[in-house]
């Protein structure tokens, strides 16, 4: 098992290297001139050249790339020029915010979508089925930023049910001590119910926005795979053995139907990490998505590269996790030692 995991990780290396190369090329191709940016509004040509040399941008691209790789190998992801912080520190600070949001969104989506999908699959062609399909498809058809804006307008501005879209906590609540970086967990660990509620209520709208977006793929996949499984021969066997309908539905059908859903879950998660960028912007969420946009706009290479690399690593880990989970559910797919 352990060996298999290592093997999987090694297998992901080429893709990671590809990511590094592409990001490197893309960031260098950005039209902005960081030297001009950092030389300030009054920078003269010489000043700009001076800054360029300082940033090491006067070297040839291959040289820069090799230096970059060397630094990476040493665990040095570089410094963000705009904030002056090491990229790793920045990522570590902001990643929990994004992950917390994404995970809550995902859990929300799963909680809604999977029962919907199962419900629809048990009554294919009924009005419930059409309704589920309509709702979920509408969800995926909404641009996330539009949903976010709309939700904020209705639930915060008009109705006042949601707290202000001001990031992870309202200004009068202090953040819980850092343990996991997830405010929900940290506040519980600290036994601070008030902070928990505050963090949860801040999370509500952005998480719903994200969840709405991925409801459809999840519900759709659940329904399809549930339908497929329900018409499988072994379900007929289970029914013929007189097993209780719930047992048939959950132990027999659902567990089997879970397999493709798991795969979708992985894809949905990486999708969510991507759409985070927009949602974070709308809700002033201090995650890595907004960080990446700012860095991109400032042509700040290191954070952009770091961000993409972190996401790629996350993606690889996530896929590994899903493979392991897959193996837990499906003995045929167990990772071989």
């Amino acid at each position, binding site marked *: 098992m352990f060996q298999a995991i290592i093997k999987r990780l090694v297998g992901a290396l080429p893709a990671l290297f590809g990511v590094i190369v592409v990001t490197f090329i893309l960031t260098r191709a*950005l*039209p*902005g*001139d*960081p030297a*001009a*940016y*950092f*030389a*300030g*509004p*009054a*920078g*003269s*040509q010489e*000043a*700009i050249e*001076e*800054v360029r040399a*300082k940033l090491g941008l006067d070297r040839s691209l291959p040289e820069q790339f090799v230096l970059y790789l060397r630094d990476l190998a040493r665990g040095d992801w570089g410094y963000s*020029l*705009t*904030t*002056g*912080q090491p990229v790793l520190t*920045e990522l570590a*600070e*902001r990643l929990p915010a994004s992950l917390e949001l994404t995970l809550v969104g995902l859990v929300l989506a799963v909680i809604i979508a999977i029962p919907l999908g199962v419900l629809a699959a048990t009554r294919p062609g009924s009005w419930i089925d059409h309704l589920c399909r309509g709702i979920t498809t509408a969800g995926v058809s909404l641009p996330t930023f539009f949903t976010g*804006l709309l939700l*904020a*307008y209705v639930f*915060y*501005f008009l109705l*006042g049910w949601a707290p*202000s*879209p*001001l*990031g992870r906590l*309202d*200004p*009068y609540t202090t953040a819980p001590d850092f343990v996991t970086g997830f405010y929900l967990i940290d506040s519980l660990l600290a036994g601070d119910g008030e902070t928990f509620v505050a963090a949860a209520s801040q999370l509500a709208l952005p998480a719903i926005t994200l969840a709405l977006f991925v409801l459809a793929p999840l519900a759709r996949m659940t329904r399809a795979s549930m339908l497929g499984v329900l018409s499988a021969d072994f379900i007929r066997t289970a029914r013929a053995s007189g097993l209780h309908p719930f047992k048939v539905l959950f132990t027999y059908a659902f567990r089997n139907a879970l397999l493709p859903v798991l795969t979708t879950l992985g894809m949905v998660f990486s999708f969510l990490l991507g759409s985070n960028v927009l949602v974070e*912007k*709308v*809700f*002033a969420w*201090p995650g890595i998505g*907004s*960080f990446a946009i*700012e860095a*991109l*706009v*400032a*042509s700040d290479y290191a954070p952009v590269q770091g961000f993409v690399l972190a996401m790629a690593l996350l993606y690889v880990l996530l896929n590994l996790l899903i493979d392991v989970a897959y193996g837990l559910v499906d003995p045929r797919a167990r990772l071989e030692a």
Partner: protein
Amino acid sequence: QDKRLETLVVANEFGPNMLDIHGLGANRPAYGVSWLAYDRLMTYGRKSIGDGVDSYDFTKLEPELAERWEVAADGMSVTFHLRKDAKFHDGSPVTADDVKWSLDRALGMGGFPTFQMKAGSLEKPEQFEVVDAHTFRVKLLRKDKMTLPDLAVPVAAIYNAKLARQHATAEDPWAANWLKTNTAGGGAYKVASWKPGQEIVYERFDDWKSGPLPKLKRVIQRDVPSAGNRRALLTRGDIDITFEMPPKDFAEMAQEKGNVKVASVPAENSMWYLGLNTKVAPFDNPKVRQAIAYALPYDKIMQNAFYGRGMPLFGGSGVKDASWPQATAYKTDIDKARQLMKEAGFEQGFETTLSFDLGTATVSEPTTILIQESLAQLGIKVAINKVPGSNWRAAITKKDMPMLFNRMGGWLNYPEYFFFWAYHGQNAVFNTMSYQNAELDKLVEAARFESDPKKYEGLVKGFIDIAYTEVPRIPVAQPVMDVAMQKNVHGFTYWFHLQPDYRQLYKQ
């Protein structure tokens, strides 16, 4: 509730990217940090401009760290006497050594701070002299009326040299790295916490001696990128104050009867303008430039892009005085524009590109669209190019954009200061039109050192007239500094650097 009255919650579009105004690439909110967390030797006076709004008074300099100062008889040096009781945040006293280190640093860091110091003829470390622990002297290179004012701008902040030196290294003698994320000041507010991209929290420095103790104990300044959200937050009372909204929002909030009020002050020494690159045909032809100046849909722009939140810089009646900025004589007159185009030999029009900075899209986009529409009447086909912020500076430096819509402002409120950077043939970055005119250069240089008010006025009128006749840049509007706040927030002061000053603010 008391706590709430002593806490101010601010929302801005984006926060500081570092805490050091001298740092490489410091953004505008970083100036605000410097303003609050550091003191300067002097500061400007303040005056009320009505509606409970104050403005700084650029004609008056007042003590901050320096109790008093005297100009030497020959006018070639100024001696500052520091407050004896002034302390930095870490409790150590402020000495002349700190002042020297700080001003040396502004010169030594290069880039923007150096440039700004130079604007006040502060160019060499030898100009700064420690007389004794609490006496400090600045020697002047020339009699520049901008020298003293320049010592009151944010760049001339006074750093805690002892503390900073502890973090300096051989490669980094000015502790630039450490000061990016830490403050070593003695200003009215301490930075209690800073999460880049999220929020910065200030706490009052109760030992502050350089002025009356601020009323607000705590200021929380959050980054809320979406203007709509900021407005909603304000309307719902979740924040106390916010800036940098689309003009339309300010216009509406000013009308509304709710709990929100809007303070607006015309931003001194700045303008929105349409720049025409004089190095690129056909804009090298003054007739074409004039034609365009006549073809701009000024009123439409004022109404639909600025929502009236700006002072018109058009439709005047010629250069009558030395006031700055002042209106041009242009107004929308398509026939005249056509005539001029014909004279210039461009009856058929031409194709060109109009660029603007994406960051200013709320105003620039409608404006450029209106311009595009209007110029189409002259047969000029304009493509609009939105340039993301990062590219904007690079593009400006390159000076290859034929047309651009931009905003330009200067801290030191002198027309020749503006012209030196924006029109002068030295071709600074801000001379985005690459404009060259020897006669204008001469007038600008002369004005800087002219002490006779009459002559000075003549010089100023002279260069304004040239600039407005040749129109390498067509002024459109003088921006207005708008701030929206809860009605219970008082004491707003307008500063030339456009950053909020929480020292005078209070809630009631």
